[in-house]
């Protein structure tokens, strides 16, 4: 499998390490239901068959975390984004919503 790192170009997957689902967001620790939310964040993960947003870390490269959209059924990689940019956009969107 090869991942197209936005900083380094297409690289072999053995340069990367994997974390998991990137579609879920770290809960707000100050929220009243933080206990349940963190429990779900930590343990209740979906086993997705199909396109999935995943966190990958370019360990043997630029040290960027990436949001990789991968079809778990055939390992096709549909999209790769910088995780920091995705997170900033998410923050911006949340700010606008509020």
């Amino acid at each position, binding site marked *: 499998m090869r991942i197209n790192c936005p900083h380094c170009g297409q690289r072999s997957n053995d340069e990367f390490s994997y974390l998991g689902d990137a579609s879920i967001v770290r*809960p707000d620790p100050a929220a009243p239901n933080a206990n349940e939310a963190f429990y779900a964040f930590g343990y209740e993960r979906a086993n997705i068959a199909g396109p999935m947003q995943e966190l990958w*870390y370019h360990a043997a490269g630029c040290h960027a975390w990436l949001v990789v959209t991968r079809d778990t059924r055939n390992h096709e990689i549909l999209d790769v984004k910088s995780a*920091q940019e995705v997170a900033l956009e998410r923050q911006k969107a949340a700010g606008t919503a509020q």
Partner: protein
Amino acid sequence: MTQSAQTARLKDRGLIDRSQSLTFTFDGVPYNGYAGDTLASALLANGVRLVGRSFKYHRPRGILTSGSEEPNALVELRSGARREPNTKATITELYDGLEAKSQNRFPSLSLDLLAVNGLLSPFLSAGFYYKTFMWPASFWEKFYEPMIRRAAGLGRAAQEHDPDSYDKAFAFCDILVVGSGPAGLMAALTAARTGARVILVDENFAFGGRLLSDVRTVGGVKGADWVNSVVAELRSFPGVRLMPRTTVFGAYDTGTFGAVERVADHVPVPAAGVPRQRLWRIVAKHTIIAQGAMERPIVFGNNDRPGVMLASAVRTYINRFGVKPGETAVVFSNNDDGASTIEDLVGAGIRVAALVDTRTMLQPATKSFARKHGIRIFEGAVVADAIGSSRVTSARIVGADGTSQNIACDLIAVSGGFNPSVQVTTHLGGRAQWQQELAAFVPGALPKGMAVSGSAKGTFGLASCLKEGAQAGEAAAVASGFQAAASAVPAADDEPSDISAFWHVKTAKHKAFVDQQNDVTAADVALAEREGYRSVEHLKRYTTLGMATDQGKTSNVNGLAILAQLTGKTIAATGATSARPPYTPVSLGALAGEHRGKHFKATRLTPSHDWAKERGAAFIETGMWLRAQYYPKPGENDWLTTVCREVNTVRNAVGVCDVSTLGKIEIHGTDAGKFLDRVYINMMSTLGVGKARYGMMLREDGIAMDDGTAARFADDRYFITTTTANAIKVLQHLELCRQWYWPDLDVQLFPVSDQWAQYSVAGPRARDLLAKIVDAPFDISNAAFPYMAVAELTVMGGIKARLYRLSFSGEMAYEIAVPARQGDRLMRTLMAKGEEFGVAPYGTEALGVMRIEKGHVAGPELNGMTTAGDLGLGKMASTKKDFVGRVLSQRPGLADPTRPRVVGFRPVDRSARLRGGAHFIGKDDAAVAQNDQGYMTSVAYSPSLGHWIGLGLLSGAESRMGEILRAFDPVRNGDVLVEVVPATFVDVEGARLRV
């Protein structure tokens, strides 16, 4: 011994180089062959037909094929450390001095006493692995298992280390073409002419595929000559890489292919600096699979006898190698291609006794050719049995009317049709599809970027293969962004390729083999079906059909078809087993590459490693690092003496320990303090500039992840250390926090573990020693540079350094860091200047003893299951802020006060030794799991106290001081009484740190 003549060599035929005579031995007998031969063709040239014994029944076996699908002609190649078992003679390139031995025979190939196994065949039939176990155990152990172990098997692996080297490499291209027959060559040529980067691989040592084996005309010239002209043109393109002797063994994701290049398997010993094999990872934008098709046998009685050979292989031996595979042939076929073999046989002067075809309508041209050459034609007939014991002497033919007759022959050329080589197309989950009109499986849905052309796709005519290859090459080039170049397809004919599916001769009287390598017969398939193994996957596992090293290349489809007939289903409904990599066996040497022995992983040395080596240090591997464990002095005969001396030196004078392996990260930015507050359980934003603080990080689930120190050199500049083992993991975690959790923070991380050589200087004389190397005007006095102070300074006359007043040993201590290249010099300087204070270096053992004496937790306590509270550090956690792991660390299970906590232990009998891993049990309780109360995590002999001490995790530890427990260690017969004590054994008040 005189060398036998090549009696079966044809004159004026073949692509071998008769000017290069080569000598080789088979079972010790010398023979001659020519450059361009395979071991199989050279053996046949010398009239050697019997080359091995079969896996279970020790039946005599010959050469069935001319390619990598060969199930029978497996030999041990080379000798000694280079001996390679199960090597296919059919693809082993002949070289001068080649040594080969037959396999699985006892005591010799021609006289095999274990051929009696054939008589035991009722016990070795389908499912024998499972059934035999059902018998009384004593029967199995004493008789059957030893007998089967001795009798069944393949070649012997070399017993010594492989003396050769293996290499790994990457290659990138626009278009990868796998296979160099007519379709592959046209694909590569057409693509190369557009300027695309092309890699052409073929498992054979010569390019050309069937064009080398069949008498065909391409573009008005002989097939082999056309091949030479195409290869020459391909060589002229700078962007084309030609890789003969290379097998693509697997398709992987994103256009990645695994391939093995046999760089030096065709020479006795690889030249200096040349690997034997090279493992390639080829990354291609587009791939064209043109691996051709493999002929399948028809299953009839004694169809495994030497002298039964695939029709296509017969033609290969005649046309490519100039060898007569027999004197008198019978051709047994169900298709035009097989039947056409009579022409090649006649052309080579081999008498053809009969053409037996299961079809009733042969091509008129074939019939007239047969009549012209006096070949008897049997239409709608079968060869029911081969007759002969160690070689074929006749064929028993059963005609359409059911009458049977024996016709003398020593060669039966058999063709049951062709199986397209679809294996690589299914490696990523695709399924081959049955096509009834071709009587073959063809590729199904293909992975992205892959195309198949030629007979691998079920296109059997030569003209069609050339055309299809050209189209595939052009399409791939255009898809890769190149302009199609005008490329004419050379003229050729499409040969007739009519086939009528036929699998198994039911009138056979003798054993009829489906899988010749694993000795699986048609009767075994029938037995499995009767016993209920009717799914193809069950059949495979119950009978072992297709599970040998050839992965059933000549047997899978036949087995499937016979099962389909038995169950009354169509082949399409019966399904197919899926192929997985590797396509052909890959040696472990190639997979390991250079990663052998010490090269398995990198060995990291600290900057002053050479100094420690000179000093006679014993080293220990910690992760990739080699660290000095202790430094024995002359006369110290055991490690404990040395370690005690090192501890005493630190406690009474001064010692120096290399701590360069610690993980080190610079954390810069206006939000650095805020960031650290969120990743450490304690507050770091309040740390004063010029100060350090111990800190702990949790995982998000509330479990302790790592500990270390944070130092602040400026408002926006921190420096943290991690444990040696977690250096990479902590950086990855911090990057996740920075980039993904809090992307808006102004903070940057710089891993600097390798930039600094760092040493702990510890003991009552530590300051005196450091005072000798710090440059003026730095004031190292206790008042100016107290406990937990940090500073940037210069030492040894202008060398940039950092000084941290930290202590892991409990003594007055410092850590001093200099740029890595100055580490060796600093160590030597400290030793020289410290002589007057009685300095000594100390290693990781003494470091460990002193941290246990002080009750500091380390790796054995931070075991991935303990919380900060378990480690006695719960009070460090700030309640004024959030941090990673805070929420989940408050879960009832993790906050439970009865959880095992770290506490100290000492033996009641002070002379008793403690053992790490011993479990705590109530003094009067039985040593059973229900009474387990925790375990000893770390132990040391404390020279300061004169007895063993330990740290351990014990339930409800705080309230149990003074309690006596059993420390039970069944592994080493340890069972000692221990007393629960506070975890700090030395200088409980910590007074020595601050002087």
